[in-house]
């Protein structure tokens, strides 16, 4: 087997050195009747065979890059520079462990320090951690953190929060005996969330742009929350929006969480992605996840280490702020490299192009009879109302080779009032031809 270095002769020599006669003498602790004879699985296969097996599966999927593509709803197709993927595949990044031995992992550590700074700047917050699994789990952790900070147990969730995010928060809260007050779906951003905030509230969780694409004014919500001693948890699923819209930190958010996939990371059918998590400096010891900090070595030279680990499970065990014992290291690296390549100028321009493309698409599609855009303001995604069943429309578009978005019914099944809505995203990858193809296909389908 190509991954196993031993020859048979090596194995025999090693068994002799250990002083046993056969390999099974090392497995004697496994009760005899429970030792496996053989697994009902195929035997080893060469690279060519594995490539063919997996290649066949891959070929059954429609790659986003092969069609006019407008799917978003929490994951976005952006162009990632070739150097990003090259760099993250460097052995020294790819095959390194968590940097617990800082003397020989300064590379990873400096990257994390730079990442934390970039995330803090992007979100307008004072401090960010070294990343979480993804946006949805970061949101759940933010709610738990708000409980710790406020010593309350009730989270209020906006109706613009991504339904999957809501489900993650609700599932955990239900089993942890916390309370969640989730407002009904709010496609147009018109809900009265202020009314839902009360003295029991630990935090109010608001997504902007919302899952429906609507941009939300967070400042009044922050004000109300703070007035009752609650925290504002601001969520985003499209990090590129931060290149153009006012950051949550400038609007009074206490915790900002979001999905970082849009920079540096492929769609990959939903994962791995990278959760971003930022907060105020005063809450740092209540924060979950890894943190990298600056210090000096024995010679006084600047260096970096994982720090404040007394919050973490491997030290504090059942008293930890979270059970999390990893970050999304390589995805964070990809995020950080892409952000570095863009810089201020590039990210702002990228965001403007995204917005322009979405505006152009919205204008073009809403010219069709019976079709309208629900949002008065949006970034690169909006909610489209179509005559008839949105899921069927999206399926019919797919048959015509256009991946036209996500029917809201897929995220919110069983709500007839949402059955005619499609979430439609457009990024810098879309060309005029893509938009024309969409409009033509939609006209044909309706």
């Amino acid at each position: 087997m190509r991954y196993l270095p031993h020859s048979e002769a090596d194995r025999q020599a090693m068994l002799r050195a250990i002083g046993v006669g056969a390999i099974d003498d090392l497995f004697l602790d496994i009760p005899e009747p429970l030792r496996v004879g053989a697994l009902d699985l195929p035997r080893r296969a060469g690279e060519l065979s594995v490539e063919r097996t997996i290649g066949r599966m891959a070929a059954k999927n429609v790659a986003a890059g092969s069609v006019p593509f407008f799917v978003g709803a929490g994951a976005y197709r952006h162009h990632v520079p070739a150097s990003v993927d090259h760099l993250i595949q460097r052995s020294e990044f790819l095959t390194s462990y968590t940097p617990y031995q800082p003397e020989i992992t300064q590379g990873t550590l400096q990257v994390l320090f730079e990442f934390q700074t970039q995330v803090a700047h992007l979100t307008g917050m004072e401090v960010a951690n070294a990343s979480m699994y993804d946006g949805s789990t970061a949101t759940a952790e933010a709610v738990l953190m708000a409980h710790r900070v406020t010593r309350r147990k009730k989270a209020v969730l906006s109706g613009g929060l991504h339904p999957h995010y809501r489900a993650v928060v609700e599932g955990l809260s239900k089993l942890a005996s916390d309370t969640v007050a989730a407002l009904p779906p709010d496609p147009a951003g018109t809900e009265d969330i202020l009314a839902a905030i009360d003295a029991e509230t630990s935090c109010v969780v608001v997504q902007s742009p919302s899952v429906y694409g609507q941009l939300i004014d967070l400042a009044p919500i922050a004000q109300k929350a703070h007035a009752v001693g609650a925290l504002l948890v601001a969520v985003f699923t499209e990090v590129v929006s931060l290149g153009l819209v006012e950051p949550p930190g400038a609007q009074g958010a206490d915790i900002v969480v979001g999905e970082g996939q849009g920079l540096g990371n492929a769609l990959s059918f939903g994962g791995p992605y990278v959760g971003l998590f930022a907060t105020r400096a005063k809450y740092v010891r209540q924060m979950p996840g890894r943190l990298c900090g600056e210090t000096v070595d024995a010679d006084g030279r600047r260096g970096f280490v994982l720090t404040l680990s007394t919050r973490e499970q491997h030290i504090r065990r059942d008293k930890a702020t979270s059970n999390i014992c990893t970050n999304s290291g390589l995805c964070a690296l990809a995020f950080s490299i892409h952000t570095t390549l863009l810089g201020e100028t590039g990210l702002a321009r990228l965001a403007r192009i995204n917005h322009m493309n979405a505006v152009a698409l919205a204008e073009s599609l809403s010219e069709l009879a019976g079709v309208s855009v629900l949002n008065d303001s949006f970034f690169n995604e909006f909610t489209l109302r179509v005559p008839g069943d949105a899921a069927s429309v999206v399926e019919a578009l797919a048959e015509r080779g256009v991946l036209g978005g996500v029917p809201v019914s897929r995220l919110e099944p069983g709500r007839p009032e949402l059955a005619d809505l499609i979430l439609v995203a457009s990024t810098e990858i879309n060309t005029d031809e893509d938009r024309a193809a969409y409009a033509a296909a939609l006209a044909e389908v309706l």
Partner: protein
Amino acid sequence: VEEPLLFEIGRHDVTGVDLDEPGRFAPRLGAHMRRAPIDLPGLSEPEAVRHYVRLSQKNYAIDSGLYPLGSCTMKHNPRLNEKMARLPGIADIHPLQPLSTVSGAVELMAELGRWLLEMTGMRAVALSPKAGAHGELCGMMAIKAAVEARGEARPIVLVPESAHGTNPATAALLGFRVVPVPARADGTVDPEAVRKLLSPQVAAIMLTNPNTCGLFERDVVEIARAVHEAGAYFYCDGANFNAIVGKAKVGELGVDAMHINLHKTFSTPHGGGGPGAGPVVLSHRLAAFAPLPFVRMEAEGPRLVESEAELAEGETPFGRMVAFHGQMGMYVRALAYMLSHGADGLKQASEDAVLNANYVRAGLRDLFSQPFGDRPCMHEVLFDDSFLDGTGVTTLDFAKAMIDEGYHPMTMYFPLVVHGAMLIEPTESESKASLDLFVATLRDLAMRARAGETDRFKAAPRYAPRRRLDETRAARTPKLKWEPPAPFEQAAE
């Protein structure tokens, strides 16, 4: 060579991405336009490539040397897996594009599940957890849901003291009270001790097997029986599953839930700290509670069930662990690894992992001290620091001295049940020649420690990008992001 911080070399008006400025158009941002600059320095592509290449050169990695981190399983990461994960039909598909356009992806998830279930002898699998600890959470949520479904309230979870910290942390996150289970003198759990702690208050036991001392819990079947008789569930921490693949099926041992770290057992890269993936296999007792989404095998083929609206009779998911469907990028790497090994290769890999650990044990047993006596271990071998008694050299010093010899240190001070623990896991990826050199180096260090060369250890590492770092200072006055230096006038004060 020192590498400055991005913020010290980047400039706001430099970009490594060429984009055309959009023409005029009427924005629809409402009043939400960003008002202040972000403060994000940029680098051109040549500068960026050099920045990250130079940073990478300050890292140790499996590809550059043996990485004997016990319990972390730093094995070879095949490049075929990276190639497969980058196929457009895998990397470039959206989790919410029509299911009719991703049948291959669902098939891949089904196939991964099939392999995991056959290897473990379990009933159902929850693929979506994003890491091992997330898998633990998933498994314990299933257990809590099952307990609640029976109308019971069982507030206690039993956890041995040798467990990973994630075990008690996970239990606590769900509001359980953690009760420790003592270990026997031989490093394993005594079924009698468990039986004494069991009661109708106990929801589950969380056991690692092989355990963190590198030993197979030989009474696991008896423990499982006792747990089940008490109406509780058996959660197995699967961090060490890599020692027994093809040798024992945890389902047959009585386990109800176990997470599988795809990065440990199935070689998806650690990436400097993730991303991982932690699918959870579930017994028939817990299968119904598997969270959304899951793959259901139907006559027409596998089907991805995403919402409660699509549930069939008897499916009672406890909720959802993540947005979307989990770590496809890791699924494909793990499946490529499994397909490459096959049933025979997977078994051989377990055997070689155990062989290698015991070979290191045999090479060191006369000089190092084994806390539980000289007996075979599984895939990792545990030493304590008693062989350093009187030398003034600590486990930490010893580990840092390994750096100067070109090795990553082993896992230190874990498990907590052993004083000055040193946990060595060579994995199956190391050749005999590599282990011989490693053993010789450790022997040499041990003899130097005993010979009184204490300074060499206290000063270590000397040949690394940094010497020992001041972790206390980092924690006391946390500096967690870059701040511009004070202006010259102030600095000069």
